[in-house]
């Protein structure tokens, strides 16, 4: 038995074990007897162990370059360094589903322990095991261990004796002599993904996705247990954990786009980015509304809805980016995974949506009704509005991302919305959210007295007016940006004030304020770096200093990096400062990828992205592709490709591997003049050598012809073509230019705020997790004593 078959079998085992665990846990819940409990736990652990085994097997196959597996052939190659080789695990769909499932199962091991302590094990784990089961079903359907001859049976499977000298084959049926060849080299990883971001970013996102299943499981468990309040305490540390990890993943993705992919900014409202933003927004909204429920018991239904929606949108986002529905409306290319995955993902959304909302529907009548007692000037109301605005943001983003589906239904043709849509809809909401994230902290629960509120508002307002004024010194802005700026500053100062107060009282409770400060600082960074940036397209002739954006740039030449990548060295000078940037371009077989480079100053980034490299512009060169007998105009005459001259002697030489010569015979027709021109390719085993020929036109100008390559057509020899380059005569008037690099340079003021804000916000979330986890522990102890 082959390792891959073992792997596929173990995945099936994991799938069945997860389903069994879900069923047994449900029995524990239904009967209330612990008789089923050992089977439930055993089933879950078996599923986890099996999945770990198959993942380890998969990793082993990747590390040992087993290209007889389609997936490994598709995404990896022998020339990848270890870290990138590891990252090919999740470079494609099957592998990333496997990673997602693996993280889900591992988180579940901790969740099991945790929920036992909180008397939630049977319910939470039955829902959670079902989720794991469905992720595993995806792997059963889209098997990552598919053999390459199963994918391409017509091309690889052969019958008869295996010819001598072939070692890369696998015997499928010894009796009938059926065997399959397999590749010795893989296609390799997409060059865009070949950097360290690929190693860290996707795993973090998947941990975030996995964690989002936990609040969902708790919400459903709460509904199953008819416990409409305390599930929140149990679930909150996990929601905060999920939001922290997913948030970190989202920002890292943004940094990846900014630093290596050369999008120029960190957010492009791309479907892949949006699909992780939507669950994040909803999760953050739910963290806020659960606060109110703890305090006053209100928002019972809202909290169920938000927690269920968070996970359902994870599934929906996966559907959008994985099922191929977005087609060709985005810069990401979405592989069409086949109908199975499409329907399975839809079924997943339907199933988990129905379980959550269905149960909610049946329970809603018996839920406690808490009359609204707070006033409009209360923290409750601010939290409500904030969560409402966050949910609306999520709604707008998800509608925008679904645009190809919506337009297909409405107009019959898929089209994506432009970035403008996201900005216009989210900016007003962003203003509201940042304002409330400051104001809410200053308000009291239940009701705030005007006097104390005004007093606490004073300093944040004064300081944010000052800060806004300071930013405006860099330039005026439109009203919405101005408001966003002011509200972000207000949130920053209000939270500093409140946070300081809390810190002096109980430092453990300061997490929320710190997280808000982080977000506010990030928003300020977004505004300064995106709205106050300075851009210039600069044409840099080699070794000639060019002033741009207050700096002097000098292109000093290029040097090869690994594989087909070239770095372009640019000296950046300003006063005493002298630095170097080296943006690079990757010229792969058929395309060019551009990677920017930047200098990070304390107050700004100097960002340089390459646009193009122009060879030294002596005489102009044109290329021509001609088929046999074809005639084309160039300069003031016509060129006709008459024939190949490749005689029997040379052909024999080629077959024997000796050096051979192919002549390409051209006719030049200028007016009534007809002349012949012969271009030669000599192939001596070390690659072809071309011999040029020149033609002097009637007016005395000299055109130099050279052969670039021969494009043979194996099916129809008459259709074989040649590619020629023609060096045009030098025009005295044309400017002479050395090798020239075109770059786009930009200055992004205060972009460090974004990164400082990110770190701050992670710290804030981490502190909140600690606080809420401790609280849940106390709660668990109380429950055990009862």
């Amino acid at each position, binding site marked *: 038995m082959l390792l891959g078959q073992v792997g596929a079998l173990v995945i099936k085992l994991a799938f069945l074990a997860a389903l069994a665990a879900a069923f047994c846990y449900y029995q524990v819940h239904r009967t209330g007897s612990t008789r089923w409990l050992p089977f439930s736990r055993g089933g879950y652990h078996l599923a986890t162990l099996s999945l770990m085994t198959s993942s380890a097997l998969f990793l082993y196959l990747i590390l040992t370059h087993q290209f007889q597996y389609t997936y490994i052939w598709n995404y990896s190659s022998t020339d990848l360094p270890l870290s990138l080789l590891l990252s090919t695990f999740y470079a494609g769909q099957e592998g990333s589903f496997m990673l997602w499932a693996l993280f889900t199962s591992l988180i579940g091991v901790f969740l099991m322990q945790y929920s036992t302590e909180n008397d939630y094990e049977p319910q939470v784990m039955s829902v959670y095991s079902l989720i794991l089961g469905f992720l595993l079903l995806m792997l059963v359907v889209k098997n990552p261990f598919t053999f390459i001859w199963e*994918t391409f049976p017509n091309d690889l499977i052969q019958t008869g004796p295996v010819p001598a000298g072939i070692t890369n084959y696998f015997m499928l049926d010894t009796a009938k002599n059926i065997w399959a060849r397999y*590749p*010795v080299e893989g*296609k390799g990883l997409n060059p865009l993904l070949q950097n360290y971001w690929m190693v860290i970013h996707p795993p973090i996102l998947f941990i975030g996705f996995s964690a989002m299943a936990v609040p969902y499981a708790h919400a459903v468990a709460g509904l199953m247990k008819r416990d409409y309040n305390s599930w929140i305490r149990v679930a909150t540390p996990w929601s905060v954990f999920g939001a922290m990890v997913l948030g970190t993943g989202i920002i890292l993705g943004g940094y990846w786009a900014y630093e290596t992919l050369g999008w120029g900014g960190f957010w492009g409202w791309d479907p892949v980015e949006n699909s992780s933003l939507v669950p994040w927004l909803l999760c953050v909204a739910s963290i806020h509304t659960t606060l109110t429920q703890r305090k006053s018991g209100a928002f019972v239904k809202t909290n169920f809805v938000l927690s269920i929606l968070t996970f359902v949108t994870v599934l929906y986002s996966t559907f959008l980016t994985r099922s191929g529905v977005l087609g060709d409306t985005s810069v990401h290319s979405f592989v069409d995974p086949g109908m199975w995955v499409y329907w399975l993902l839809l079924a997943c959304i339907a199933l988990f949506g129905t379980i959550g909302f269905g149960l909610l529907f049946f329970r809603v009548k018996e839920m406690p009704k808490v009359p609204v007692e707070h006033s409009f000037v209360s923290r409750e109301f601010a939290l409500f509005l904030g969560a409402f605005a966050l949910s609306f943001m999520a709604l707008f983003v998800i509608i925008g991302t679904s645009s190809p589906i919506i337009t297909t239904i409405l107009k019959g043709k898929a089209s994506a919305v*432009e970035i403008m849509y996201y900005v216009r*809809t989210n900016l007003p909401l962003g203003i509201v959210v940042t304002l409330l994230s400051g104001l809410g902290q200053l308000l009291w629960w239940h009701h705030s007295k005007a006097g104390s509120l005004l007093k606490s508002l004073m300093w944040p307002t004064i300081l944010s007016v000052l800060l806004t004024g300071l930013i405006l010194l860099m330039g005026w802005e439109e009203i919405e940006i101005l408001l966003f700026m002011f509200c972000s500053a207000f949130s920053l100062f209000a939270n500093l004030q409140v946070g300081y107060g809390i810190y002096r009282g109980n430092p453990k409770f300061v997490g929320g304020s710190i997280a808000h400060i982080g977000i506010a600082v990030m928003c300020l960074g977004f505004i300064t770096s995106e709205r106050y940036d300075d851009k210039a397209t600069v044409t840099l002739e080699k070794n000639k200093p060019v002033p741009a954006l207050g700096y002097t740039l000098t292109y000093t030449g290029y040097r090869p990096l690994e594989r087909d990548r070239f770095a372009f060295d640019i000296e950046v000078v300003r006063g005493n400062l002298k630095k170097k940037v080296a943006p690079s371009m990757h010229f792969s077989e058929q395309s060019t990828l551009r990677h920017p480079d930047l200098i990070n100053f304390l107050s700004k980034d100097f960002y340089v992205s390459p646009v193009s490299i122009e060879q030294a512009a002596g005489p102009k060169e044109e290329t021509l592709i001609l088929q046999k007998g074809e005639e084309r105009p160039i300069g003031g005459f016509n060129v006709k490709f008459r024939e190949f001259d490749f005689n029997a002697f040379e052909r024999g030489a080629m077959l024997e591997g000796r050096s051979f010569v192919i002549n390409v015979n051209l006719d030049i027709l200028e007016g009534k003049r007809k002349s012949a021109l012969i271009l030669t390719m000599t192939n001596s085993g070390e690659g072809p050598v071309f011999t040029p020929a020149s033609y002097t036109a009637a007016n005395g100008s000299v055109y130099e012809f050279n052969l670039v390559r021969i494009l043979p057509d194996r099916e129809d020899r008459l259709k074989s073509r040649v590619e020629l380059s023609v060096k045009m005569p030098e025009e005295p008037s044309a400017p002479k230019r050395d090798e*020239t690099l075109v770059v786009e340079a930009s200055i992004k003021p205060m972009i460090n705020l974004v990164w400082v804000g990110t770190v701050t916000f992670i710290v804030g979330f981490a502190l909140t997790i600690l606080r809420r986890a401790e609280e849940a522990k106390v709660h668990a102890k109380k429950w055990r004593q009862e």
Partner: protein
Amino acid sequence: MNVKVVVGVVVVVVGIVIGAVNFLESNVEYMDFATAERTNKRAQVKGVWVQEQPTSFDAENVKFTFYMRDDSDRTVKVVLDGAKPNNFEIAESIVAKGRFVDGEFHATEILTKCPSKYDGDAEAVKKSL
């Protein structure tokens, strides 16, 4: 209570209207060159790059110029604001977003749809045997 409900409903309705208007406005319609030229609207046109016609890059102004044939078989000169898009040469089809200016299509964005390099196809398998 009633006032609250009314205010709430108004906020939701306004939100939805703003969203819907923006959605429709920013959804650039697909059409062919002929329709785009006639209506003079911002449009998305799907087609293929015409390799036989000259392709050039103006480094001074950062304009990439090429010829594109749409699905109705009309070939038009396209001027893109920017450099040659990634994967331009291997794209099996391209989508240009922009509008007509003096008989040329001025594109602000180009999406390239790539065929196979990373999708796995039989040709590549045979090559790597």
